[in-house]
């Protein structure tokens, strides 16, 4: 559904952030993008919704090339891509509800958004999503009054109210404690399965990624050096991605009896075809 072809990104400073990257993401597929700092993970997902303008290549979300779109088409394309950020990127002085509804800005005219008169279906959906992420009691709290995990939940609700086809997730757990990190990852993966959403998740935490996703893409210095299931991520592969290091203990989930968490999640909440895949 998302097709990235020969994407190259060279910053004006001359740094080559992405070098001829090609990836395809299927509908409903959650992939983790791993790699060392500066490998181009953030640049890659920022290119997809063109927060940065790629130097060359093509990005297709079910049709037209996003790289070549004009302003109006780009706005419409961005509505179909929800983004979740590392430091939450909530507007601190707006309320939780305003932050969630800001995900609807691509659909709503200027005057309605200025007067905060959003269409009733959008408001209903906002309440539903806030309930789903467990924050329906904090609707009118200001975003800067929330804890890290709560903020990230608002960030997730804001991305989902766009009713996107794909989620672009940039280091969702980097500022969170280990328990909250797992809760947030589980929530993101669950929501993707519930809605048949594809997702690209940039993540530093390799064990966490291996626990929750079915496909991992490893990036090193702007090139893809691994693309496959978590199981295939051997010590040798990790060395290829990150450089020489003692990797023992990184892949604690190798236990064969225990199905990986993404399968459990799919079995619990997924649509029937995913449940079939999980049972297989």
């Amino acid at each position, binding site marked *: 559904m998302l097709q990235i072809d020969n994407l190259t990104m060279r910053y004006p400073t001359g740094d080559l952030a992405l070098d001829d990257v090609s990836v395809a993401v299927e509908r409903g597929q959650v992939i983790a993008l791993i790699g060392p700092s500066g490998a181009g993970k953030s640049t890659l997902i920022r290119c997809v919704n063109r927060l940065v303008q790629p130097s060359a290549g093509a990005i297709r979300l079910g049709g037209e090339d996003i790289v070549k779109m004009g302003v109006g088409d780009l*706005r419409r394309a961005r509505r179909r891509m929800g983004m979740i950020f590392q430091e939450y990127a909530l*507007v*601190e002085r707006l309320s939780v509800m305003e932050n969630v509804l800001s995900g609807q*800005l*691509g659909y709503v005219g*200027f005057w309605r*958004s200025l007067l905060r008169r959003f269409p009733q279906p959008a408001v209903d959906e906002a309440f539903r999503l806030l309930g789903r992420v467990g924050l329906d009691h904090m609707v009118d709290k200001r975003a800067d009054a929330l804890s890290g995990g709560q903020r990230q939940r608002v960030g997730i609700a804001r991305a989902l109210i766009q009713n996107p086809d794909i989620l672009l997730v940039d280091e969702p757990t980097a500022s969170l404690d280990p328990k909250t990190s797992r809760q947030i990852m589980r929530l993101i993966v669950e929501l993707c399965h519930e809605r048949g959403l594809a997702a690209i998740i940039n993540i530093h935490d390799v064990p966490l990624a291996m626990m929750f996703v079915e496909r991992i893409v490893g990036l090193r210095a702007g090139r893809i050096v691994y693309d496959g299931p978590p199981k295939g991520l051997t010590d040798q592969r990790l060395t290829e991605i990150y450089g020489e290091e003692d990797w023992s203990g990184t892949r604690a989930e190798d236990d064969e009896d225990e199905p990986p968490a993404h399968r459990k999640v799919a079995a619990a909440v997924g649509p029937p075809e995913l449940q079939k895949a999980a049972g297989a």
Partner: protein
Amino acid sequence: MTIALDAPTAGPRRWRKPPMIADARLRYALYALILVYLYVALSSVTVNYARILVGLDRGAAFVSGFLSPNFTTRWRDISNGMLESLTMTVISTAVGVLLSIPVALGAARNVAPPPIYVACRGLIAVSRAFQEVVIAIVFVAMFGFGPFAGAMTLAFSTIGFLGKLLAEDIEDIDRAQVEAIRASGASWPQLMNYAVQPQVAPRFIGLCLYRLDINFREASVIGIVGAGGIGATLNTALARYEYDSAAAILLSIIVVVFIAEYSSGFIRKRFL
């Protein structure tokens, strides 16, 4: 003696902050130059002691006038002047604030395209290059004596002041919040309303209140060059050596400034 004589240095290792100018000769030469300059500068100031003695009497007359301010004789002039000054202040601040918002958005590098940025920065530079009194003289020449020229003056310098400070505040906002709103497919006006405005609003309110304050004080000054308001009344009183009325005028100005100061502090606490 048990001191280790084979250590390369005896005693603790000393540390001093390295001087800003490494070369000691250059450093002392600069100190000497500064002293010579101060001596020459101070000796070039000529003080006319006889004139100061005469002036002391006038100063005393002024101070004694202050001790017995006369509000009654010129009450009509004072109240009219004060009302005019307040009107000029409110109108010029309102107009100036409204006009400064688009200018500030245009002068913020992170939200405006380069040609608009250059144009708005230019407008701000022009507005700030001239002191209020200079602008007032030009506007009085253009529009004639009276409060209209004064209000135009103050509105014009409000654009420069607020435009510059607000633009700098906009340039300092958190980019991640802007990116997040942009990523949702928001249009440019929506981006301003959702990502920029909430971040700059507290400082903007503070700056507007501060500018209201400045405009009132400036409204008193530019009256002296004929731009209306209490300044014109003050100028007349001083020209007639009516120090008691002048004192009454100055006291009224001080009272209004104090009221403005306290109420702006209250408003700031309420809203930020």
